[in-house]
């Protein structure tokens, strides 16, 4: 509505006479125009890159709150200290287990929910509207909500499930529980992405193979899955990358404990840099996590590119 009126206004504007050709703007000005538009964003980018670079510089120092007066360059000894510490490798393992399990569960459930919602169904169309609710709540607030439910004495989960005083956030159960909360929040993310993907698929191949008498499973395996794969991969990339740097709801639920059972890399870095005020050590943790994220991203994006090309072939 509003767009048409403004278009209308644009057309009614009296055009200056003798100027039916493009206005004579010098070529250099025309070429500079996009740069001019992008300069503010570039400035912000540089201002954000500055702390990034500073963080990388910290890894080479012995910068901590206790010795701000006499900071010196210590070379790679931070890396040596971190890479030889058991705490770091425990955090790496926790992070990887968290990321792999969470992403796998959410992908399977998300694709399943998307396929169930894609079927015509009364209940489905009602559910679809409320599907995203957990996704839109702040993960930190979701953490608070689940901590109330997990409470072993009067939490509602133990009451409803009849589990007595089951300890959801004990040392053997905490990792499972924080993954459960992640699944609760983020499975809808996978589901709505995949659902949008499934809906955008062409119908002809399915109709053709239905006429040929192909089974539902055959159609799913040979047609739907290859064509859906790029959408699934986009969701997997987002989830896996976010899980590697997971912090919010885990910190609220357990603060990394009990012990170090849910100390992911970003929580470990938080403890080193903010709680113990050892900025250099925290920065080193973060730098290594960043490297892990970067390598994973490069790999997953190349897989996505291949899948997109293959899906384009499958649709021909």
């Amino acid at each position, binding site marked *: 509505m509003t767009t048409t009126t403004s278009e209308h206004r644009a057309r009614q504007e009296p055009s200056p006479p003798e100027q039916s050709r493009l206005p004579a703007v010098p070529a250099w000005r025309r070429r500079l125009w996009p740069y001019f538009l992008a300069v503010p964003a570039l400035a912000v980018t540089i201002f954000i890159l500055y702390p990034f670079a500073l963080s990388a510089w*910290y890894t080479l120092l012995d910068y901590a709150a206790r010795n701000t007066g006499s900071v010196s360059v210590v070379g790679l000894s931070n890396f040596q200290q971190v890479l030889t510490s058991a705490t770091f490798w425990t955090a790496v393992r926790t992070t990887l287990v968290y990321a792999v399990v969470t992403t796998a569960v959410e992908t399977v459930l998300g694709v399943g929910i998307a396929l169930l919602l*894609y079927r015509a169904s009364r209940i489905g169309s009602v*559910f679809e509207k*409320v599907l995203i609710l957990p996704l839109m709540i702040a993960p930190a607030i979701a953490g608070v909500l689940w901590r109330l439910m997990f409470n072993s004495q009067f939490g509602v989960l133990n009451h409803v499930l009849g589990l007595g005083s089951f300890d959801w956030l004990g040392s053997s159960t905490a990792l499972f529980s924080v993954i459960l909360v992640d699944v609760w929040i983020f499975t809808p993310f996978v589901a709505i992405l995949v659902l*949008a993907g499934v809906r955008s698929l062409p119908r002809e191949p*399915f109709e053709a193979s239905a006429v040929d008498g192909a089974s539902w499973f055959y159609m799913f395996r040979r047609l739907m899955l290859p064509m859906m794969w790029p959408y699934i991969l986009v969701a997997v990339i987002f989830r896996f990358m976010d899980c590697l740097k997971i912090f919010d709801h885990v910190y609220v639920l357990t603060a990394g404990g009990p012990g170090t059972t849910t100390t992911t890399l970003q929580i470990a870095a938080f403890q080193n840099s903010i709680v113990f005020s050892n900025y250099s050590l925290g920065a080193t943790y973060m730098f290594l996590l960043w490297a892990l994220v970067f390598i994973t991203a490069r790999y997953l994006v190349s897989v996505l590119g291949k899948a997109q090309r293959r899906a384009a072939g499958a649709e021909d």
Partner: protein
Amino acid sequence: MAAAELMPGQRRFTPAAVGADLLLLVWFVFSLFPLLWLVLLSLKTSAEQTSTYFAFSPTLENFSTVLSDQGTRLTSVNFLSALVSSVLSCGGAVLVSLVIGIPAAYAAGRWRFRGSDDLMFTILSFRFAPELMVIVPLFVIYNQIGLFDTKLGLVWVLQLVTMPLVIWILRSYFEDLPEDLEQAALLDGYTRRRAFVMVALPLVRPGIAAAALLAFIFAWNSYIFPLILTGGTNGTITVAVARYLGGGGQAYYNLTAAAALIGALPPLVLALTIQRYLVRGLSFGAVKS
């Protein structure tokens, strides 16, 4: 629309269809029960908060307590001030991102200029970079230059959340906009700037609204930035809600639930208004529906 269509070979009211609906039901019980529970808990009195489950006498008192001085005295969390701080700093962050991001998104969506891809991917990488990598140096810098625990400091650091979202979503909208309209405007004697402001901008207005609201939601929901870069006076809503369970002393689960509900409501309402644009926004323009 598409939801009403049957898949090829699918029939209504078969045992399989009923089974599928049951499976969906299981998920939605799991998905919605915690939210229902949050509402119930927020309606309980302090006397009933730990002794009852589903049968109790509901009251709305918790909401007014949370927002009042009395709630601050009881829990030592100044919720109202956190609410104000969240509204101002998130609104400010989105505004800055729009003013700076819209021209850049237009430039990158319309032209391929030298370095445009590098700039776009650097901005996208902010979305995936571990937050502490930026926060640790900023924590040191903010303490030195007096930006610690200020709204300005928050607006600045929240650009990491809002800027990539705004630029990437809007770039995909500008890319979809046919160039002919602006060309026609140029032929009518418009300058480039007027063609951008009067022709291109109004056409992507739904995209701008969706990007702005989604950016606001994500800024509102962010936790690690305000957790570290604010103290007592300018902490945001997520920090405040989490603090209800933090300290010692008596726990007020009912007040916690009321606060959590107030904090969760704005994103929920905003998300439902932009549901059509959500997929495109959440995937940074990668999936268009």
